[in-house]
């Protein structure tokens, strides 16, 4: 068995006195599609920020294709092949959709660093792939909300990642838009890219992820195939208890 593409071991992140991630460990193989689910505040986005080196770890390690991420700069992680989207989209607003995507192709992983002219060609391909075809010339402000999500995915994809981290790219979309987005995820996965899909609404990823990891209060609650995981009483409680949990956090004033 070969080494995993991504290996998290005892990843820990604290903010002041709050432990946002507490000894989180799991692996992800080359080309695998894994869902990361958990109620609000479980630490999903924090984990993603650790993976893309926006945060420094307070303990544990993250290895990507054998490299320790802690020793790398943010851009080096990206160039090594970790692409990501942001839950709250962060487009380059003065640019067109096509230019946004071209930035990914211009700077992405080392094997894909392209001169400007070719970067724009790649951008056009990726724009078609995510279903933004024909709207590449629009400024970000002129795009619809779902299209901005697609743009976020396209930009990350243009870096030619080996691992794509998708942070709630389906939140706030209507059912037909979700179906469309799921198609895009499947298409990307079919091209051989490993994907970690973060979703709050677990039903969304049940259909496409062979394996899910459940995060709760910064810890891995359990992992396995979705049908078993979703029936597990601990997972049900984590979700049902959420409203209560939120009330508790709210009264502490840090929710």
């Amino acid at each position, binding site marked *: 068995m070969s080494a995993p593409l991504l290996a998290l071991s005892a990843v820990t992140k604290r903010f002041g006195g709050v432990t946002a991630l507490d000894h989180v460990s799991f692996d992800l193989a080359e080309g695998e599609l894994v869902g990361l689910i958990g109620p609000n505040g479980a630490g999903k986005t924090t984990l993603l920020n650790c993976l893309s080196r926006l945060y420094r770890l307070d303990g544990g390690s993250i290895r990507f294709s054998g490299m320790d991420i802690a020793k790398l700069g943010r851009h080096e992680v990206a160039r090594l092949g970790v692409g990501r989207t942001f839950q709250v989209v962060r487009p380059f607003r003065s640019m067109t959709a096509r230019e946004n995507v071209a*930035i990914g192709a211009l*700077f*992405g992983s080392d094997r894909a660093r392209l001169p*400007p002219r070719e970067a724009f060609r790649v951008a056009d391909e990726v724009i078609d792939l995510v279903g933004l075809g024909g709207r590449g010339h629009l400024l970000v402000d002129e795009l619809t909300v779902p299209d901005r999500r697609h743009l976020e995915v396209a930009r990350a994809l243009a*870096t030619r990642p080996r691992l794509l981290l998708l942070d709630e790219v389906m939140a706030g979309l209507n059912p037909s838009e979700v179906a469309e987005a799921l198609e895009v995820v499947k298409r990307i996965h079919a091209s051989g890219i490993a994907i970690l899909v973060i979703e709050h609404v677990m039903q969304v990823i049940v259909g496409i992820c062979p394996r899910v990891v459940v995060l709760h209060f910064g810890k891995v609650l359990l992992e396995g195939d979705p049908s078993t995981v979703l029936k597990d009483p601990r997972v049900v409680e984590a979700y049902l208890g959420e409203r209560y949990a939120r009330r508790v956090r709210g009264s502490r004033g840090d929710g």
Partner: protein
Amino acid sequence: MRSRVLGVVTVAAVALFTLLPLTTTDPARAMGLPALLDRSQLRGLTTISMFVVLTSAWNIIGGLAGYPSFGNVAFFGLGAYATALLTDPDHGHLPLGVGLLASPLVPAVVALVVGFPLLRLRGHYFSIATLGTAIAFGEVINNMDFLGGATGLFPPIIRSDLLFYYLMFGAAALTVGVTWWIMRSRLGHGLVAIRENEEAAAVLGVDTTRYKIIAFVVAAALTGLAGGVFAGWNSFVNRDNVFPVDYSVQMILMAVIGGSGTISGPVVGAVGLEALIQLLAGGSGVYTQILLGVLLAVTVIFLPRGVIDFVIGRSRLTLAHFRRSLRQTSV
């Protein structure tokens, strides 16, 4: 189509500003050309070229990378002092050409060193820290005896307005050329990405630290070159004439009025505003400064994206535009 028009305009402007100075009184007489300019007008054109350098160089770090430095005048001063020190008869006593070589180098090295801490700061902090750097550099140099203290340095007088015009014009052309090249290259795309969202740029693989430093160093080198030419031209430098904080703000004002983040905006802003200042009061004076202050306020409020926005057709100059830009930013 539009780019072809722009190309023709550029070539025409370069030709005009290359040939026109030959018609200044003395050289015109020597070459049998009609005298269209007098010496003070030629000096005015040199000053305009100088501000094109300063403004376009500021645009690289402030307009493209989105790090509005309020301290670029430090690089002008350092460049001027570098040249002055090497050419002053009491110090280096070297030819002007050698002195000019040092003028971009010294500020570039300084920018490299101070850039690492400064460019980690953002927003207000970056702006004020750069402002403080400029004031501090002026003050330290003012206190150094081997740099002439408060008296300053005196490079040898070279009586050729035409030479210094062409040097400054060359520096301006170089700066605009460098900007043009940057904007088409990977570097330029990376800088704009940093300006729009630094973290997003980083996770797409942009080496943000390195790119910001490069932009800062390039801006410093070009600004320093203008300082070096100024030192030779003025044959006298001290803190008051090469470290004025007003210059820092003037270059920002010119870039913003013209339209920062573009190639032509800073040029248009520098030429237009400096020409206006010279027409009004010969370049200095209390009332010019008051006017500058008012202009600053008016620009910020009514033309936040600069006049070039209208010229290249991204916005129409209408009352509705003013109302819209006001509504977007006011309470």
